[in-house]
């Protein structure tokens, strides 16, 4: 579930190359440590990542085990209370965080890879290849990703987080391909690329050594947005009941909370933490991205 910040980025990409590829690393670091948006965003994301990595180590039972009293509010031995089956909400939450980060990484990574390959190829090769890839991109762009995923996931008897991530990655790349293509088009006619071409280097080397480094900051920010988008799509799928068939995830927690009427039962501790976790991760990623944009792009810095 991408947002329109992405659109702003894509629009920006189409008007020309963004960011400053040539900024020295030290300069970037100088502005990075002074950017509150970046620091706060990265701080929240890292704190939640650490919770997801370390938290499960302190939990003895599997997250779905029926360990405690039923429907207990937070307090006592259960910091986030228990579900109406007596499952520990905190245990589910920390394991769910893990799943969320994993699905973001896999989904975002695959989407970034596919989008970049398609975008670079289309932008650099041009001609018929460009036409065909562009057509495919536009088709996948128009198809509503979540609904395609629902259809695909519905037929699977057993679903895992990795598979879910792959599926999400394969449906959410088109806007990246478009943006990368636009930037590649504008870079491919520059003198230094012509020079590299004359020296007889292979096309993929030119793309990765000459073109990609000039948009590295942009690619990095794209990956962050894809990461957040994949998390949101996964949460949606899980919520419909098409999440991983075994294990836990934050979306699945919301699914069971709503299915077992936690709402009318007033068991807020069951449905507030998972949604809050997702919102905190994705929101912080977005805010972090604004900060990164300011770090990489001197025109945006507030001095």
């Amino acid at each position: 579930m991408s947002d329109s910040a992405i659109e702003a980025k894509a629009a920006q990409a189409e008007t020309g190359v963004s960011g400053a590829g040539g900024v020295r690393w030290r300069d970037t670091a100088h502005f990075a440590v002074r950017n509150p948006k970046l620091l706060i965003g990265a701080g929240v994301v890292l704190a939640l990542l650490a919770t997801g990595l370390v938290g499960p180590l302190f939990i003895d039972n599997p997250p779905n085990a029926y360990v405690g009293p039923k429907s207990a509010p937070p307090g006592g031995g259960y910091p986030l209370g228990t579900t109406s089956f007596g499952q520990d909400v905190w245990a589910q939450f920390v394991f769910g965080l893990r799943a969320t980060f994993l699905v973001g990484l896999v989904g975002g990574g695959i989407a970034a890879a596919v989008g970049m390959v398609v975008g670079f190829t289309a932008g650099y090769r041009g001609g018929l290849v460009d036409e065909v890839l562009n057509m495919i991109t536009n088709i996948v762009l128009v198809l509503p990703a979540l609904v395609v995923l629902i259809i695909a996931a519905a037929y699977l008897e057993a679903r895992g987080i990795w598979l879910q991530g792959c599926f999400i990655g394969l449906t959410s790349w088109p806007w990246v391909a478009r943006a990368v293509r636009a930037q590649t088009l504008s870079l491919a006619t520059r003198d230094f690329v012509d020079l590299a071409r004359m020296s007889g280097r292979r096309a993929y080397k030119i793309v990765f050594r000459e073109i990609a480094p000039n948009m590295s900051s942009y690619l990095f920010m794209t990956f962050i947005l894809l990461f957040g988008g994949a998390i949101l799509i996964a949460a949606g799928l899980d919520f419909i009941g098409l999440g991983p068939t075994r294990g836990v995830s934050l979306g699945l927690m919301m699914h069971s909370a709503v299915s077992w009427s936690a709402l009318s039962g007033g068991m807020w501790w069951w449905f507030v933490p998972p949604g809050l976790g997702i919102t905190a991760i994705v929101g912080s990623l977005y805010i972090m991205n604004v900060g990164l944009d300011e770090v990489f792009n001197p025109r945006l810095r507030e001095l």
Partner: protein
Amino acid sequence: MRRYLARKILVYALTFVAAVSINWLIPRLMPGDPVRTMLSRGSAGDPETMQAMRDYYESVFGLDQPAWQQYINFWTSLFQGDLGISVWLFPQPVTGILLDAVPYTLALLLPAILLSWIAGNRFGAFAARSRWLDNTLLPLGYILTATPYMWLGILLAWGLGVVAGWFPTAGAYGFSSIPGWNWTFAWDLVMHWFLPFASLFLVAFGGWAIGMRNLIIYELEAEYSNYLEALGAPRKLVRRYAFRNAVLPQMTGLAVQLGTIVAGALLTEIVFGYPGLGNLILQALNNRDFFLLQGAFLFIVVGVLIANFVVDVVYVVIDPRTRTQMQGGGA
């Protein structure tokens, strides 16, 4: 201009073909016997209905025929408006079930999309380059757009529905109301409609506001803005030009975001038990009703394609470059 629209229509036609092909292919690609999978959790209990369902599905899938024949049959029945018969509500045709649900989904989606787009753009333009708003409300916008649709729905249903008791939290109208053309029923509909609408609106609003804010900042950096300012044009005028330029990419953004917002509406409907397409998808999943699921998929894709086309046409009309071409009778 005509070429532009022709190209768009070609893309949409191909997308439709792709969607139909996905529908045809997926049940055949997945492991196992599709007919058996479908019937394994069918709602019918007695053996006679079971046998009728089995016969029907085997004839529909026509697995004894060659693949190309199956594919052509699939398209033929599609053009006859036949999307199959539901397992969940056997023997009702899927098309009818879906058509009953569409108005509810549209009632949520259309106002949510239009109002959030308009209000978000206005607000984003207003907040841009104002330090105080930027620092307080911008993070709020990012958090809103990062909120999973269903979670905001859950929070609203819990806070304003269950705890405060202001709004009902399930269905499109109360159990006790009798559908009819009267004010009591209309009011009941509005009360049930409000919370799902509000959660859709809020999430989408955050996204549009941020997008607009960023675009306005880019526009204010542009040469023409600097030039206008140097000429001593009032701030308001410069901003008005910036806004008009920024609306075009936001239009494109609207087309791109349609799928996401539609998905959001499906999730929101599930939270509130609102009887639109999202709820049907949930029922279809719970009852292993794949015809209903695939029919819903096709309906949604067609809806998104139509909406995309509308956006394209509106874009052509509001973009002064193409508008001039049209008026000049060119292209």
